[in-house]
Structures are given as C-alpha cells and as structure tokens.
C-alpha cells in the first residue's frame, strides 16, 4: 500500500518541540523541520547503517502521523537526492519517512544536552 502520511516517533516530537521552542524564526512551519531533518539525514548521517532503509522503525515505533508526504517532498527533490547517494531501499516513500525520523533523532542527540545551541550547530 503506497505511503501517504509521514509519521514520527515520540522522541522525534521532542526534537520538533525543541526546534520550535528555540527560535520561532528558524522554521516557519513544522513541515520545514521535516524537510530540514530529511536533508540533514542525507548529508550528515551514515544511512548505510540502517539497511534496508525503507524498513527502518525508530525506537518505540512511529506513534503519530504528522505530514502528508506530498507536502514534505512535493517536487521529489529529497527522494531524488537520497537515491543519488543511497540505494539500500526499495520503496522511496518509506525511505523518506525513515530519513525524516533518523534526521530528527540525529538532531535531537546533538542538541538535547546542549543548553546554548543554535542553528549553526546543525550546519
């Protein structure tokens, strides 16, 4: 069954909350956070460790449907970029869900204990 919604874990939500709390003008909407997280995962996380990527399930599982897939990657840019660097998946939509979650986890690991973090820590 094709994927239409992107879901996240409860830890992912904590990360979103932290990003939102920090500065309202880092990201205008929550879906911008999803885009950033997915690209963050492609550029900063070694995704080969999570093969098959489309089958990845975060700790505690996906607990909440958050965005429409088409809202996050309307022009297919993220999925196209992912396919340039990785091929350890079959379904690109599920892979997108995975990388959003993995990106949020990676960001969360970086900022959760850092009091004075800012966006430059993620660049």
């Amino acid at each position, binding site marked *: 069954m094709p994927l239409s919604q992107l879901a996240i874990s409860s830890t992912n939500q904590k990360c979103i909350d932290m990003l939102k709390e920090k500065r309202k*003008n*880092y*990201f*205008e909407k929550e879906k*911008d956070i999803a*885009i*950033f997280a997915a*690209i*963050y995962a*492609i*550029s900063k996380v070694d995704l080969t460790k999570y093969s098959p990527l489309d089958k990845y399930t975060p700790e505690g599982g996906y607990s909440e449907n958050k965005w429409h897939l088409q809202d996050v990657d309307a*022009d297919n*840019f993220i999925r*196209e*970029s992912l396919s*340039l*660097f990785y091929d350890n998946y079959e379904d690109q939509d599920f892979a997108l869900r995975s990388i959003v979650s993995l990106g949020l986890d990676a960001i969360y690991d970086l900022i959760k204990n850092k009091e004075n973090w*800012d*966006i*430059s820590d993620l*660049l």
Partner: protein
Amino acid sequence: MIRIQNITFYNYLPYYKEKVFDLSGKEGTTLIFGDNNMGKTSFINGIKFLFYNTLYKNPDNPDFNIYYNINRKAFAEKDYMFFVSLDFTYEGKEYHFIRRYRTKSDTIGSPKSDNDFEHDEIIKEGDKYFTERERKELINRIIPKNISEFVFFDGENVKKYIEILNDDSDSGAENRKVKEAINNVIGTPYLDSLINNLILIKKEYTDEFDHKLQQHSKDEKKKAEIEKLLIELKEKNSAKDTTKYLLAKTNDELNDVDKKLSNLTRSLSVYEEIGKNQANLDIENQNLENAEKKLKELLSTVAKNLLYDKLSDEKKRNTLIIEKLGTKINDEQKITQEIQQLKGLYKKQECPLCGSNISQDQEQKITQKIETLQKRKNEFSLSNEERNKYNLAKQKIERIDNLLKRGNVSPLQRNNIIQALLDIKMSNSKINEYKQKISRLKDELKDEKTIYDLITKRDMLTQKIKEYEETLQKLEQEINALSNKINNLRKRIKDVVGLDILEKKITFIERIINAFINIRENFIEEMRSKVEREANEIFLDFVNGLNNDIARVEINKNYRMSIFTRNGDKIPVPGTGYNTLLALSLIYGLNRNTHLFGAIFFDAALSNLSNNYTRNVIRTLSSYAPQLIFLAHKDRVDINDVIRVLGGQIVNQFEIYQNGDAFNTNIRRL
C-alpha cells in the same frame, strides 16, 4: 573702597597667641591655604567677629559663650584675653580696628561666665579714637552687617544665593532676607520709609478732612453718599489685604514646592537617562529585527542548500570517474584509428606519400606494428563494469545538475548565518543591558509620583497666584475709582471753611508720593540693570573657553538669574556647579554696584566645580577684585595650579598648618 593691610588674631579660636597675616604691599590676591580644621573658617568668622561682635554660641553653657571663642590652649594656660584686629585704609584714610575680650580686673580665678569678661571695641584713625557713635557709623558705612553677604563670598552665603536663584517668588523667609539685604544695598528702604511717611501724612489730612466734613457740613445727602462710599472703600481695602495675604501665602507654598522640586533634580536627570536608554533600546530592537529578518531569509533555503556540498562532492567524484575512464576511452580510440590507418596501407600496396611499392619486408613490419597496437588497445579497453561505472557517473552528473537547477540549490551561506546569529546575540545582550539599566533607573525614581504631584501642585499654585494678582489689580482699580469718586464728592461740598486748603494739601502729597514711587521703581530697575551687566560680564568670564554656547545671563525683578544660549534658548535647570557660578556672579554684581567694592573674602565651596571652572573662577575673581583674599582647601583646590593660573597676581601666600596641636594654628608665609 576698603583695603586691608593686616589682620591679627590673638587667642581667637585655633590661633594661639598672636598670629598676623600681613597683607600690606601691592594690591592683588592673597592666597591662604590649609587642610581642614586649620583655621580658614575661623579666619572669615574672625573678621565677622571684629565687625559685628558675633560670637559662637556655647551649646553646653549659654552663659559662657566666650569659652567657645577663646583659644583653649591659652585658656588652659590662664591667658584669658583674645582679640582680632585689622589695619585698613578706607577712602584714603588709615584705620586700626580691634575687638577684644579680657577678664575683668575683679575676676578671681578662672572665668566662669561671659560676665567675668569685659569687651572693648576700638577704632583709631591716626591718634584719634572714635566715639561709640562714630564707630557705629563707620562700620555701617564699610560693611553693614545685613549686607556683609556681598563681601564674604563664603559657602554659607553662596548657598543662600543659590536658594534665591531657585526661587522666582517674592516670598520665602530666606529669600525675603536676602532680597531685603539687596534692597538695603540698593538703598530702597530710605525711599520706602519716605513714601510710608508721606502716606501717613496724607492719611492724617484725609482723616482731618472727613472729620471736618462730618462735623460742619449741612449737605446731608453728599455726606451720606461719602459715608456709603467710604464703607465700600473700607471693604475693598479689606478685600485687598486678604488677597495680598493669600497671595503671599500661595507664593510661600510655591516657594516650598520649587525647593522640593529642585531637590529632586537627580530624578529629572534620571528621567533623561531613562529617555536615552529607551532610545538606545529602540535602536537595538530595530537591529534585532533586521538581524532576525536576515536570518529568516538565509534559513528559508537552508535545508536544500545543506545538500549543496554533498551534491557538489558527488558531482566531483563522478567527474573524476568520467575523466579517468574517459582518458582510457580516448586512448583506445586513438589506437583504433592508428590500426585502421595501417590496415589501409596494407591494402593499397604502395605508399600514399612517396608512391613507391611496399616491400614484403615493409609489409611484415606493418603487420607487427598492428599486432603491437592491438595488444595496447586491449589494455585500454574498458571492462563491462568500467563501462557501467562510466555511464552511471555520466547519469549521476546529469541528475545532480538537474537537482541543483531544479531545487535552486546554492552554496550554504554558513558564515552569513553565523554572522546573523552573532548579530542577534549581540542585540539581545544589548537589549538586556538597556532593559536592566532602565529598570534600575526606574527603581531610583521612587519619587516619580512625588514629582508628578509637585508639578501638578505647582501648576495649581501658579494659576492661583495669577488669579490673586488679577483680583488685586481689579481691586486696585476699584479702590482708585472709589477714591476718585469720594474726592470729587468732597470737592463738591462747599459749605465748610478750610476744607479747600486741606484738599490742596492732600493733592500735593499725593503727587509727591506718586513721584517717589516712580523714582523708586526707576531706581530699582536701574540698579537691577547695572547688577545684571556686571554679573553677566563676570559669569561669561567664569565660563570663558569652557562653554562657548552661553551668550548671556539675565536677572529678573526678583533677582532670579537665567542663562541663555547663543540661539536664545533658556537653560531650564542649570546644574549645581552653574548655580554656584550664578550665585558668585550675582554677589559680585551687587558688590560692584555699591560703595562696598574693594576687598573680597572668598571661601566659597568649589567642590561642585570641575578643575577648569575652578581655575576660571579664581582667575576671574582675582582680576576683578582689587584685593582678593582667597582661602583654599588644600585637598579641594590644586594649590600649584592656582599659583600657575594666577601667576603674578598673587601678592601674598600663606599656609596655615598645625603640628598635631588642634589649638595652635601656625602661619607660614611662602
């Protein structure tokens, strides 16, 4: 003009035994300096003691004030005499003036009260001793007590003047005292008393007139009319007195409010500081807004741009693959071409260049060459895997270019983002700083409500004063109209003998009174204008080179002074330092316009003036006064600086000091 030759203290306060300040010689400035408690104030008070017999009061024993004025060391040594004496010239004559206290000859043992002392006041001109009346007259002529303020420029007097400067009303006890003194200098009390006497004479004639009228006239109708008008006049006069009283009272209240307001000047400057910090805060808020806007702009593309480096690296990596495999392909293509050429030669049997036949030997060589080239070609040939890799790289580059173009991906402006973040941090930190400052300053403004209340009260009182003044003016007009009416009626009564003579007398006195009132007003105005001119001149010298924006000072009818800038703007609240300068200018202006002009004793507190202003004040006073006796606090005034500033103007220099003995001040001439 008074000129002091020398001053002698004998057992007066800290001056043990005889201590002489010899000021004879050239005219100019005498500098007397010393530490605290060495005898500077006692010096000034000694002069006041000499002229006015002012003794310090003994709080422990009111019957024995002398004990608080005599040198304690001398007293302990049973030397019970103390005096201050002065040799001076006045209007070309030389005088010796001494005031002395010593125990009466019948005092047994140590004195116990002022009664055990006798007091001498001696003034001599050559061999001539002055009588008590002559002494009194001379003292009053030289420095009358009530106007000594214009000779002694000491902290206490300057303070009094600062009070008057802050007071625009006619009332206030201290204010009245000082203004009374100013009027004394100007000489208005003589005119006032003359006018009052004339008014009394006029009243006597008017009473006599009315009495005769009531007694002898048969014109009952007019008499009744006059009687009625007189009652009305009395009521108006009574209303006038009440209004005058209310006006004075309201002026007193306004005076108090102004005093309180001037004490709250710190609060006004706090308001100003809050305003400045608020302006800075507004600017910083704007900076923050700009930096946040810029960051937002940069972050709007940050996600895709985050991939730029990775995509670029990937493109480079694939380009390298293509370059590397591409060389191999090129080499292979070259060798294939060469083989083709050789094979062509082989077929034609004659050289296309020289046209000779190809020999068998040559044919063999070509075959060998082709074989060698074939071997090399095999080495360069891409494997299937390599060919796939090459194709894949080509595809990837195409896809990357496509992504970069489609996603509008550009290099991540990391440095700009960091800069915007730093700008935000900086602005936030400044904003916090300004907010804290404002909050601290607001804490200081606990009197804010008080100021507001005082300003409201001031407005209300000013309005009331205006109303009272209008009422007074109206009453004055009504009284004048009634008086005229009564006078006219009186003139129309013809049946009483002698009334016409009385009437003429009354009219004549009225004319004289009006003439003197005019003289008094013109005289006061003329004096005010003269004092203003002198005060203005010296004030501009005080600020010369330090504040060139000041154009002039003005003195109003109540001797309140205002400072105006070159643009004609009035400085609303001069600082304490400037008030000191204004006070000194006013004292000088008054001094200069009276017969007192001559020696000036200057012991004014200069602590609220900067070094530059202090220098200007000393320099100016020294050049203006024919004889300046300047008492300086060693720690407050840089003595070397004073000497440098005044240069040749200093004719005498004394240091007063003590060697660990508080009752033995010594004088060292330098």
